């Protein structure tokens, strides 16, 4: 059983809770493999997607997960809402709740927004990405995918490559994978990996050739074009030259390495197309698994006594 009504971050979860979600996700993945992919589990419940940042894949994945569980789904996207008329965040959230929402899936560009809403709302708040803090369901689906491919997470060497400083995906994955016993390495330019990150129990590398040796999993992060020319790295060309994933570099990893990416990808910049479309890539499986994991999260949160 989960103990909190909300999923705010991996930080807040115990190892048991993470495993519970992953095990439940396996059951839902079976459902998704059936001819009829919908279960009546949460019929009558209402899910509202509140997205303050553009998102296609995460929003769609949550929407579909909610529908597969038979909840009614509304998408509340910011440009069409009263937020542009100056409504405060709290008022927006209370309004959504007053419509009868049981689940509020929130994405916001500012860290801590799901935490603020969770305190104010009776509905279950699910963090779909808050600023540079966390993106817990992404980490859960990544862990699920790794477990599916490698049977376990414990003891694996996993490299996360790219803009760690600004990546909520990286943060959630660091917490999740270290909790599950993996040996996590971070690779990227020093401007994008803060010194203190090592205190999280990871090892930092600044050269791909050093960091990729013998890894079981490579997790690439999307490089934000906005960072170039702001002192983080001079150009995407130079970034790609030093920290892009190429076949040569991937050959340093274990033979059965898997390559992951949360998407959307910058092909030819952080990852070459041969790899993205190649046999080591599990990128599309991540997307499918995301559905199962999000169903599991909603199902388990619905069972929490409020």
């Amino acid at each position: 059983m989960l103990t909190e009504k909300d999923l705010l971050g991996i930080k807040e979860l115990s190892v048991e809770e993470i495993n519970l979600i992953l095990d439940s996700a396996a059951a839902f993945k079976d459902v998704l493999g059936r001819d009829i992919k919908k279960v009546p589990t949460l019929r009558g419940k209402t899910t509202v997607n509140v997205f303050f940042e553009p998102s296609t894949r995460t929003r769609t994945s949550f929407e579909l997960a909610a529908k597969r569980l038979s909840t009614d789904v509304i998408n509340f996207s910011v440009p069409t809402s009263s937020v542009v008329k100056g409504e405060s965040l709290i008022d927006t959230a209370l309004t959504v709740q007053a419509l009868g929402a049981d689940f509020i899936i929130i994405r916001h560009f500012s860290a801590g927004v799901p935490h603020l809403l969770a305190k104010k709302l009776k509905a279950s708040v699910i963090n779909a990405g808050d600023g540079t803090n966390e993106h817990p369901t992404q980490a859960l689906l990544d862990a699920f995918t790794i477990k599916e491919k490698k049977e376990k997470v414990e003891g694996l060497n996993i490299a996360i490559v790219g803009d760690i400083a600004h990546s909520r995906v990286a943060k959630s994955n660091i917490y999740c994978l270290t909790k599950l016993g993996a040996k996590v390495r971070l690779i990227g330019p020093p401007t994008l990996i803060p010194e203190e990150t090592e205190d999280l129990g990871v090892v930092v590398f600044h050269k791909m050739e050093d960091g990729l040796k013998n890894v079981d999993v490579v997790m690439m992060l999307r490089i934000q074009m906005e960072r170039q020319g702001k002192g983080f790295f001079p150009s995407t060309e130079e970034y790609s030259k030093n920290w892009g994933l190429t076949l040569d570099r991937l050959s340093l990893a274990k033979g059965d390495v898997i390559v992951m990416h949360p998407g959307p990808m910058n092909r030819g910049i952080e990852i070459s197309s041969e790899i993205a479309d190649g046999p080591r890539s599990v990128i599309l499986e991540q997307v499918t698994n995301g559905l199962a994991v999000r169903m599991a999260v909603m199902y388990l949160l619905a069972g929490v006594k409020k």
Partner: protein
Amino acid sequence: MRILIKEGHIVDPSQGIDVIGDILIEDGKIKEVISQKSDVRSRKAPPHQPPLSKGGIKGGVSSELRTIAAEGMFVIPGLIDMHVHLREPGYEYKETIKTGTAAAIKGGFTTVCCMPNTYPINDNASVTEFIIRKAALEGLCTVLPIGAITKGQKGEELVEMGTMKDQGCVAFSDDGLPVMNSLIMRRALEYSKAFGVPIISHCEDLTLSEDGVMSEGLLSITLGLKGVPAEAEQIMVFRDILLAELTRGRLHIAHVSTAGSVKLIRDVKKRGANVTAETCPHYFSLTEDSVKGYDTNAKVNPPLRTKKDIEAIKEGLKDGTIDVIATDHAPHNRDEKLREFDFAPSGISGLETALSLSMKLVDEGVLTMSQLVEKMSLNPARILGLNGTLKSGADADITILDTKKEVRVEAEKFASKGKNTPFDGWMLKGFPFITISKGRINEWQ
């Protein structure tokens, strides 16, 4: 009207007094301090026989005499807060001169110096005049304005310091918006010498702090909030210290929050420079951990730092590196704080908790009571050319505090409009029992 404060523990570092005794007030002025016990450490004998000691209270003038029993309480010069935001004119929804001075009185302060970041900004004598007039009409304690250093706090052009001083400004500061241009800062430190007014510097390298909202470190990474390194403060502390040495101007460094700043200031004082510094109760009471859970009441600029910084600040207070405890009272409206951490305004409503939080330093042995009074009254008075004393003839600005009774901080009951405090619910000792401002008695409990 006469007031007799009886049998209090009088501490007045301006006269080296630490005695059990009485204070007589007449017509809003201190008439005299009368030591009662012979075993006290008074360096000053009572000048003559107390006029009221033999039946004076019961005598013919009793109708005019108010006696305050202060046994077991500290009786100290009224506190002076050289760093508050009263928000008026322009942001009356956050605070007014009336509510801000009520909060001051409740917190034991009889003088507050208000920062210029109002709307309009106090960068010309007419705004200064407005504040002084409004304070005379509605203020419950003395209000002394601090003018902006530059017009519009833009860091480009000096204000008319002489004219503004004549109108009542006691210091100049672009608080909240540091003067980034070193040449302008140099000129400010030079020009202000003509009028003998200090330049108060909010030290922050804006290009380094960028849009950071908390202390930079592991916690800022794990909360996903943008951090501000301690160096953003220290770089500017060092720059301003060097400029003060270059110009021999009067520099006062506002709200010191890092161990590195304490060290820089200690070193410059050793070199004999005329630099003073302040810190605030939250910088020796709280660490960045208060930000956990995205509590916007713990969002303050400069940000809360680490245990190591708290220890250094206490050391700096103890050894005299930090001269002053000010509040940086920054009241905000409830709705402004109830929002995304990134967008909530910085600041703590501090007037009503400052004294009791600072009294913890006395309990811990960091400061003696006399040193505490120096930090909260005498030193700000010296820096700004004010009183801060119980000498006979001075305005009767006196704070009487109960150091035994433990009281729960209840933000909702603040006199300030700003209920934004990270200390809500704390149990603290050392709240004022009576604050006398220019002979007017304000009482609680």
